[in-house]
């Protein structure tokens, strides 16, 4: 697409673009060099500060943090998905008495900061931190999953449901056997993208003092001394970002694989892109 915006560059434009690239790269490199030299003046790159990563206990603490992060995310995802399916079925029910209250609940859950829900569960129900984190993640993400799957069902051709009802399936059977399987497949890229959001949001556990990766960083910095804060933070942030980029890549891969298939495969998930756009 971007190539349509401008001509295939001629010799003059190529020169301008090359100069632009060089100047741009120099500016970015200069900025990086400035940051690195500022950091170096703070003594960030002294070997002594990074030597802590040769210690096994530092890695085992980091490992515990990663384990806590991943286990909260995994438990939350496993509970949130079926709950999202259920909420979706209630949300598109034929009975207004079910549909409208569900809609209000979903709007409420989606309009709420996740950290507030974690805090709510922690204080009002007096649970431990793990349950509070998982509950906050489940409530929010089940609502988002429900909206994504609903968008998937609405994007199906009307004939799918009509055909299902015509051959004598009940409304519920048609939803379960005809529409949901197609909708979930269509929305797979958005659902996986939402998993990245869920994984990212486990870091909110830091705020309710759940011992996840970022909390581990804080604990180690308090324990070992603040001069180690930057190295530990840097490594932990890199781990977090690497995990998230991997899951994002899986989403992109599923989308590519799906779009190669013929009709009935995974379609472009336009409506749900809105839902998962941020956060």
């Amino acid at each position, binding site marked *: *697409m*971007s190539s*349509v*915006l*401008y*001509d295939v*560059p001629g010799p003059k*434009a190529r020169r301008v*673009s090359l100069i*632009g*690239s*060089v100047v*741009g*790269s120099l500016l*970015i490199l200069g900025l990086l060099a400035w940051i690195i030299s*500022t*950091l170096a003046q*703070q003594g*960030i790159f002294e070997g002594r500060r990074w030597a802590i990563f040769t210690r096994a206990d530092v890695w085992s603490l980091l490992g515990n943090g990663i384990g806590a992060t991943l286990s909260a995310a995994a438990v939350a995802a496993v509970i949130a998905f079926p709950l999202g399916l259920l909420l979706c079925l209630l949300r598109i029910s034929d009975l207004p008495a079910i549909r409208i209250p569900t809609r209000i609940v979903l*709007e*409420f859950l*989606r*309009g*709420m*900061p*996740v*950290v*507030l829900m974690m*805090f*709510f569960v922690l*204080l*009002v129900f007096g649970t431990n931190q793990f349950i509070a984190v998982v509950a906050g993640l489940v409530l929010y993400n089940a609502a988002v999953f429900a909206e994504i799957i609903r968008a998937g069902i609405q994007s199906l051709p009307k004939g799918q449901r009509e055909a299902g009802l015509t051959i004598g399936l009940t409304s519920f059977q048609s939803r379960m056997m005809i529409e949901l399987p197609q909708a979930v497949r269509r929305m797979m890229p958005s659902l996986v993208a939402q998993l*990245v959001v869920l994984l*990212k*949001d*486990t*870091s*909110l556990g*830091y*705020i309710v003092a759940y011992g996840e990766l*970022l909390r581990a*960083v804080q604990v180690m910095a308090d324990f070992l001394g*603040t001069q180690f*804060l*930057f190295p530990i*933070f840097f490594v*932990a*942030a890199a781990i*977090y*970002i690497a995990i*998230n*980029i991997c899951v*994002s890549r899986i989403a992109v891969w599923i989308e590519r694989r799906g779009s190669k298939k013929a009709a009935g495969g995974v379609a472009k998930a336009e409506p749900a*892109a*809105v*839902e998962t*756009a*941020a*956060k």
Partner: protein
Amino acid sequence: MDVIIDNLPLYWEGFLRTLFLSAVSGVIALLLGTVLAAARVSPVAALRGFSMTYVEILRNTPLTIAFFFAAIVLPRLGVKFEQFEVAAIIALSAYTAAFIAEAVRSGVNSVPVGQAEAARSIGMKFSQVLNLIILPQALRTVIPPLINILIALVKNSSVAGAFFVLELFGYGRQLANSNGDQVLAVLLGVAFFYLLITVPLGILASTVERKVAIVR
């Protein structure tokens, strides 16, 4: 219920600070995000690469990490702030800009190729094609997702409450600690004020979506 009415001034102050944080970060993020999106489609390879790297990294960074960096790591590195609001605004706008850049870029990509071709065939330059033809159309498709990003921004600003900024969530935490017996009412009050921002914005998003939708 009494605890909400008694502390209404605190709620109100927190509400205003949440609005302030969201508004300032929103404006900065919109500007930065549009610049990043423009860099992403520009002919200069270095700009494209920079924009791509920025978006890829920031989109995969948990917001709490961004806040931790701005509020706790940066001061240790010698960047001192007068107020922690500045750190919160840095974290929020840097984070949100990545999402805005992606939304604007997919908006640019949603404009049919023929539009750009037609514009170029009547002799427009790159800047003219972008400013007069592509961006006005792209912005219409982009507005509903942008509003959704801003809703997320309002909700995300609650993380600031954990990093020394007294906004809605920060006051909520404080009140919950000092009124241990009425936690439920305190937090429902906080929830109400968040909904006061997010629900109207959500209705606005779906109205705008219906109004500006272009049938192609």
